[in-house]
């Protein structure tokens, strides 16, 4: 493992995009930054700038209005990158799945690496998802759940 690969696991910068959910998952994502969970101790920072990010955290279902924005954001994140879909809406469309303005989960627009289901997903689950993405970034195969 090279020095850069090691550093990659110690420093993950997150860009967080809400595709149009109810903000429940967004609150939980931000809760992970609070003193109780404090993800900065693992080097995880909510950077807000796609050009410097390593991980995209997406919440909410994709609609026709913002699919172009999501696509642009995805292309602005330089490789190697990971995409995490947080919450039921981002995974599958959730309770909005049949709405005419909704495309479905975010995987209809961008390739997703880690799915974190839940309505709303709990901060512990989100951190677990980020750790899973971290392992994938390092090239380790994540262990399968029975």
């Amino acid at each position, binding site marked *: 493992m090279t*020095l850069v690969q090691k550093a990659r696991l110690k420093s993950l910068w997150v860009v967080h995009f809400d595709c149009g959910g109810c903000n429940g998952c967004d609150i939980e994502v931000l809760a992970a930054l609070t003193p109780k969970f404090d993800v900065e101790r693992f080097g995880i920072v909510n950077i807000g700038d796609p*050009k*410097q990010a390593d991980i995209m955290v997406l919440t909410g279902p994709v609609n026709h209005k913002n699919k172009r924005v999501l696509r642009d954001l995805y292309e602005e994140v*330089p490789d190697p990158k990971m995409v995490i879909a947080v919450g039921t809406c981002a995974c599958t469309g959730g309770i909005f799945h049949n709405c005419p303005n909704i495309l479905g989960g975010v995987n209809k627009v961008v390739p997703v690496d880690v799915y974190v289901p839940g309505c709303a997903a709990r901060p512990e689950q989100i951190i677990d998802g980020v750790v899973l993405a971290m392992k994938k970034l390092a090239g380790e195969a994540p262990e399968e759940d029975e």
Partner: protein
Amino acid sequence: MALATPLIGGLLMGVDRKLTARMQERVGPPLAQPFYDALKLWGKTVMIDSSLQPALAFGYLGFALVAAGLVTFRQNLLLVLFVTGMADICLTVAAFDAKSPYSYLSGRREFLAMLSYEPVMLLAYTAIFMVTGSFTIRGIYEYGAPLLLVLPAALVALEIVLVIEMKKSPFDVSGHAHQELVRGVFTEFSGYTMALIELGRWTKLATTMMILSLFWAPSPVIGGAISLVMFFVVLMVDNLYPRLTWQRMLRTTWAVGFALILLNVAALAVGGVIL
């Protein structure tokens, strides 16, 4: 020694993040976190939207290193100020060069930040010249007595400069205003150009700390302790106060900074220390 300045600056940045986290009752990242960040940025795919940006990022680091070298070899303080100014200009032009409103607006604010603190630094160096009779750092060492005893108010004025230099609240208008400007002047940098900019920032921070330690030149240990105390005060202020507008920044720096240094010089003239 001059090449060690980025490492010292990087460690200081790590201390900054750890202390800030402790002040917010968080555990905080490890001390080496800035080095991990820079290494990771170095390994990212290159995505550059203007061909001038990498050159300017190298220029920023280059000028910062030259300034650090000038301080290490006890050269002229004015030269240090102008070379550091060139580094800032590289950063600002790179911010203007990207076709992004966030970057452009931050570039303008960065210029205003330079306009705020550079005259105060110039005046502080002039006060040092009036006391020691020389603009060179060697002159400060030859003066013998600690500068802090004759120019205490100038050091307070330089504290305000350190706040702007470190891009901390209440004067973080261009670098850290993430609620309004994403990442300020750094928005359009990515990958290795951002790593270069980070290295340049560490170098500049270490250089400024070295200049502040000159206020107790006879003993580098006490001088270093003084600059570390000032560093800690900046972190306290950062966690206590919200961001002000650039108008308030310009007004405060000029009014308070100029007044402090001029009063100090006037007091020395009345006391007969300088002519």
